[in-house]
């Protein structure tokens, strides 16, 4: 993998000329022939799906930018005009709007896969860290983009989130004015958000190249989580193309079916109705909520009584992911062989969903209506405030306490010596004989 030798042979004169000057064709060819563990399951297809998401967002976004008008008086109507008067504009805009949701569905599953199978551990720390950076940039890009239609949620979302910067001691206020381009959210804010919303996807694309470079160098993890010994390379890996291009391709088509169901039949199901009300700085919506994919972090923000503390916790919730490779003390990568950790992982996923749920509720609302409760510090115990705090505590404990301790204390299950071993009697040596039967079993 890292010592994957190039098998590319330039054939024509042009290719030879180019290869000795800019070996870009070799780079692509090497990626296609990359030895890939053959036991990768469908959880490994989200990388390809995410590449598709980014391409779709950039392509639709470039067309939208041709018609969109970044002006507080005209932005809302220009978005509607795209959907009424631009050829295919309704599909382009709804694809872009729902594309953001699809992007986040895929990135969350991609990250959970990495978490479950220990893809962040040596020698793959940089793949994970660059991935976290991409995730952070995605959140920033999605937030900036949500402001552009200049509906009520756009405006008030921008108000709430930029105000967080103002909570930083000393420098907060000047930085806030600098970010907004003035004392309040206005035309200057919309213009710079539009500019940055166009810029960041290309920064993401650059990070994707680094992500793939690191992946190419360190090699892919696999569901068993072991490094493939050099002498097993031939037996345990297959070239990326055509084996994984076709498997990723199948998963991409399935993903497109989900995508199409939203775009064609329920394009506004994932959005908030209030964002079809033009922005009005004088009318605060009854309930300001971000898009669904930010709800867990929004919940963490609101769980902390102090505003600046909330900002710190929210950023820490993302920041902790960057140091994950050093928080996990286990020598075993895959949670397949870590039954104790697997239980904590399942709870973590449920807590993440729970945080998302809490983020959409009013903090004071009772979780179980009618259940007797009592005042605990600043809120009723039977309220989303305290449920959110419980979930937030687990979120951080999972990374900061559970991961380091369980890694040291647990007794992992025995780990196979090769990735073929769990599937094939004889460790895959009797490859052809066993093929028809085991082809039925997926990774």
């Amino acid at each position, binding site marked *: 993998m890292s010592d994957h030798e190039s098998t590319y042979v330039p054939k024509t004169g042009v290719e030879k000329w180019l290869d000795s000057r800019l070996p870009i064709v070799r780079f692509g060819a090497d990626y296609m022939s990359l030895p890939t563990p053959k036991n990768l399951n469908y959880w490994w297809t989200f990388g390809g799906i995410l590449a598709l998401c980014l391409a779709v967002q950039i392509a639709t976004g470039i067309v939208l930018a041709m018609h969109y008008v970044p002006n507080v008086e005209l932005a809302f109507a220009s978005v509607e005009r795209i959907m009424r008067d631009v050829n295919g504009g309704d*599909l382009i805009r709804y694809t872009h709007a729902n594309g953001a949701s699809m992007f986040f569905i895929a990135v969350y599953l991609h990250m959970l896969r990495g978490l479950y199978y220990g893809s962040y551990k040596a020698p793959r720390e940089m793949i994970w860290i660059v991935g976290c950076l991409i995730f952070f940039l995605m959140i920033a890009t999605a937030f900036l983009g949500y402001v552009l239609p200049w509906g009520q949620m756009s405006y008030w979302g921008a108000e709430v989130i930029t105000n967080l910067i103002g909570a930083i001691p000393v420098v907060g206020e000047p930085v806030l004015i600098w970010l907004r381009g003035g004392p309040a959210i206005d035309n200057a804010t919309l213009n710079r958000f539009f500019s940055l919303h166009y810029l960041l996807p290309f920064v993401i694309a650059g990070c994707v190249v680094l992500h793939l470079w690191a992946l190419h160098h360190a090699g892919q993890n696999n569901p068993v989580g072991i490094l493939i010994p050099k002498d097993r390379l031939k037996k345990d890996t297959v070239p990326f193309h055509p084996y994984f291009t076709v498997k990723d391709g*199948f998963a991409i088509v399935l993903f497109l079916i989900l995508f*199409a169901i939203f775009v064609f039949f329920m*394009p506004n199901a994932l959005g908030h109705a*209030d964002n*079809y009300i033009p922005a009005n700085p004088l009318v605060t919506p*009854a309930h300001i909520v971000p898009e669904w994919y930010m709800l867990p972090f929004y919940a963490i923000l609101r769980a902390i009584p102090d505003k600046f503390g909330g900002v710190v916790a929210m950023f820490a919730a993302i920041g902790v992911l960057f140091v994950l490779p050093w928080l996990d003390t286990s020598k075993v990568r895959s949670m*397949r062989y870590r039954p104790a950790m697997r239980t904590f992982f399942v709870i973590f996923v449920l807590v993440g969903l729970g945080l998302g749920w809490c983020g959409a509720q009013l903090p004071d609302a009772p979780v179980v209506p009618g259940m007797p409760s009592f005042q605990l510090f600043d809120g009723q115990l039977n309220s989303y405030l305290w449920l959110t705090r419980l979930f937030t505590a687990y979120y951080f404990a999972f990374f900061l306490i559970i991961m380091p301790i369980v890694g040291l204390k647990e007794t992992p299950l025995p780990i196979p010596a090769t990735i073929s071993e769990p599937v094939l009697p004889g460790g895959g040596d009797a490859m052809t004989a066993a093929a028809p039967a085991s*082809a039925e079993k997926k990774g």
Partner: protein
Amino acid sequence: MATMIPETSMRSMKKTLVLIAAAAGLALTAQPAAAAGGHGYALRNGNFSFEGPFGTFEQGQLQRGYKVYREVCAACHSMNLMSFRTLAEPGGPFYDADQVSAAENRFVKALAAEVQIADIDTETGEPIMRDGTAADRFPNPYPNATAAAAANGGAAPPDLSVMAKARAGGARYIYSLLTGYVAPPAELQIRPGQYYNAYMAGDLTPFMPEGSEHVPPGGFIAMPNPLMDGQVTYDDGSAETADQYARDVAAFIAWASDPKQVQRKQSGVGTLIFLLLFAGLTYMSYRRIWKGVAH
């Protein structure tokens, strides 16, 4: 060294997936409910023809709805994003298969010509009023938002262009609201210029006597009940009742909020058929390529 994947590990992974999928499904469906908020009545079902993946608009209903909008709602509510020509686009209330283009549709041209549009004389530069054309936007009942607010007790009537997208429940919400002017409980304190509506957003607790057990659902609205039986004449034999008017105008606004929705759903059906076939082909290619590779 173990030679088998522990069965329990595979099973638990599958169980986890099912759990996660179920929770994600719940989270998705719960969001609109949370957004709608409160403890109101369930929205009334208008038996709309355009709901569901195969639903289409009834052209007669759209024409009736447009008539209700024009004769009743348009007195106070603008639809700034709507042009007359849009009424004649495929799927619209006045689409005619024989028309040269939407802008040349004879019904739409006649309807537009009935309104006066402020313009500038191209020769003299003087402000003038001229007959509307199909390319014109629907006229705004008020010169600006301040005038609209001043004429309506301080609350400008909202623009209706995208109203079905701007309220949770869409057409059902509009239909429910327009028929939601039920008699309020006697002890509810209603301020002057306000009306009780069972489907309006709000919390009426402060307007009920202290300690009331049954706070009515709904809220206050500045718009009086706009629709009365017999107010608009229908020439297609449909019932001239407030309920029918509400249903028709809700359908019209649902169409106007997203005029391409039916064409989009129809292309969606084709797209899904294609994707399903493509998925089948890709899967067969996958099986064929991986044939003989144990994994």
